[in-house]
C-alpha cells in the first residue's frame, strides 16, 4: 500500500473517537502490541535519546524496501512509533524520504512530534529518513 493510502486509513480509524481518552487508549494498545525490536538492537548504538523517553530504531534493506523495527520505554511514545512504522516500514527509500506524515497532525497527535516534547520521536523521523537516504545512495551505487 502507498504511504498516502496508509495515512488515510489511520485518519479514518482515528476519526471514530470523539473523546481524547479513547484515542489514547488505542495508542496505548498499539504501543503494547508493537512487535518488539530484536534485543541485539536494543543497545546504545541504536538509541535515539529524548530527554523524556527513549526510542530504539533499527533499519534493514530487503528487496528495495526498508524494514524498520523499533521500541520505546514509554507506551504512548511506543504507540506513536508503531503508527510511524506502519506508515514508513516496507516502503521504498524514495517514498520514505518524500513522506510528509501529515496524518500525525490530522489525528491530533502533533504535540508529540514537537521538538520541545523531547520524547525522541522528532529525532526518530529524522533518523528514519536518514536511513532511507543511506539505502538510496547504496542502491544507486550498485546500479
Amino acid at each position, binding site marked *: 500500500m502507498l504511504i498516502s493510502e496508509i495515512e488515510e486509513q489511520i485518519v479514518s480509524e482515528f476519526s471514530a473517537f470523539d473523546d481524547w481518552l479513547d484515542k*489514547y487508549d488505542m495508542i*496505548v494498545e498499539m504501543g503494547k502490541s508493537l512487535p518488539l525490536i530484536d534485543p541485539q538492537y536494543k543497545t546504545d548504538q541504536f538509541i535515539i535519546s529524548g530527554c*523524556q523517553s527513549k526510542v530504539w530504531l533499527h533499519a534493514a534493506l530487503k528487496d528495495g524496501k526498508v524494514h524498520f523495527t523499533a521500541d520505546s520505554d*514509554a507506551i504512548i511514545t511506543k504507540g506513536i512509533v508503531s503508527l510511524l512504522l506502519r506508515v514508513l516500514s516496507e516502503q521504498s527509500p524514495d517514498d520514505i524520504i518524500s513522506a510528509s506524515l501529515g496524518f500525525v497532525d490530522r489525528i491530533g497527535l502533533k504535540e508529540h512530534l514537537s521538538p520541545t516534547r523531547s520524547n525522541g520521536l522528532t529525532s526518530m523521523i529524522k533518523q528514519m529518513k536518514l536511513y532511507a537516504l543511506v539505502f538510496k545512495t547504496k542502491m544507486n551505487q550498485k546500479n
Partner: protein
Amino acid sequence: MSNFPVDKIRSDFPILAQQVYKRPLIYFDNAASTQKPRQVIDAIRHYYEYDNCNIHRGVHYLSVKATEAYEEVRRDVREFVNAKSTREIIFTKGATESLNLVACSFGRRYVQPGDEVITTIMEHHSNFVPWQQMCFERGAKFRVAGINAAGELDVDGLKAQVNEKTRLIALTHVSNVLGTINPIREIIAFAHAHNVPVLIDGAQGVSHLPVDVQELDCDFYCFSGHKMYAPMGIGVLYGKEALLEELPPYQMGGEMIKDVFVDHTTFNELPFKFEAGTPNVEGVMGLGAAIRYLKNIGMENIAAYEADLLKYATVKMSEIEGIRMIGTAKHKASLVSFLLGKIHPYDAGTIIDKLGIAVRTGHHCAMPLIELLQIPGTVRASFAFYNTEAEIDQLVAAILRVKKMFE
C-alpha cells in the same frame, strides 16, 4: 490552614482562572516556575509606562527616578534575606548565572591544581556542572556527597570528604527532585570550623522558607526571581562582602568599571563590580513587587500553609496502590516526586496533562541523581501557596485514571 486566605490569593493570579482542555487549570509545576500575581505584572507595566530609562549616572529626571527605584529593590532584597549590606546583593539573570559567576570568579581566585570542591548528588545541573567544569579546567578534584534511601543528604559522608584541600562546598537548600530540605546550618558550621566557605543554591528555598543569610552564616546564597513569583531573567547572588571583594569580576563592560585607560582598567565597587552592562530593570521592578507580595502574606504563613498541603498530598497519595514516592525525607519542601508501578513518567505526565493538571516529568535537570536511583525519571507535583487540597484530590483522581489506563 483555614485562616490562610487562599481564595483571595488565587484571585491575585490571573493565569489561574483559565481553562485548559476545557478543564480548570491546576498548576503543580511551581518548582519549575511559579505564576505571577497581578501586583508583579502591574509593577512591570508601571515601570514602562512611567519610569523606563537606563539607570545609573544619568542626570535627567527619569534616570534618577529609575535608578532610585532599582536601588530601592536592592534594599528590599537585602531585607528579605537579611544580608548585612546592599553591597552583598548582586542582581543576575537567575540562580544559574549566580552559580556560574561564583564558580568562575571563585575558581580563578582560589582554586589551584590538587584542590577540591564538594557538591552533592542531589544538585540541579546548574549547581553541578559549573563546579565540575571549573574543577576540570583548574585541575581540581570534584567530589560528590551521596544520599540515603529516603533521599536525605549523607551528612557524615559529606563531612568526611572535607579536608585541608577543600576550597568550597556547594549544595542546595532544597532538592528540586526529592523535596529534601538539607541541614545547611549544620553543614555551614562544620565547614567554617574547617575554614571552608559554603555556597547555598536557594532556588528552591526562598519561595518556601524564611531565609536569613546572617543566621545561616552561608558565604553565598543564590536564587531566581521566577521561582518566587517574580519575572524570568532576574535573580540574585548574595555573597559576604569580604569574599565578594576578593573575587575578580565575572563579565566586563559598562557599569562594572571605575576608570578605563588604554593599558589598564580599575573596577567599580560592590555590588556594581558584578553587574556589567545595562541591567534587567523591569525584572528588578517585578522582583521588588514579588518580595512585597510575599512579605505581605508572610513567609512563616506561607511555609505553614505549604507544609499542610504537603502533608495532605503525602497522606492521600500514599494510599494509592503501587505508588512509589521518590524522596521521603523527614524535612521536605512542598513537592512530591513519584512513580506509578512500571508506568513511564512520560505516559503518566501526558495523561495527567490532558486532565488539566500541569506536572513535570523527566530527570528535572538532575541526571546524576536519576542515574543513581536507577529510574527513568519521576513525575513531580510541586505546590505553591495558591494551590488547594481540592486540587490535590483532583491529582489523586488523575493518577487513578492513569493507573487504569496503563496497568
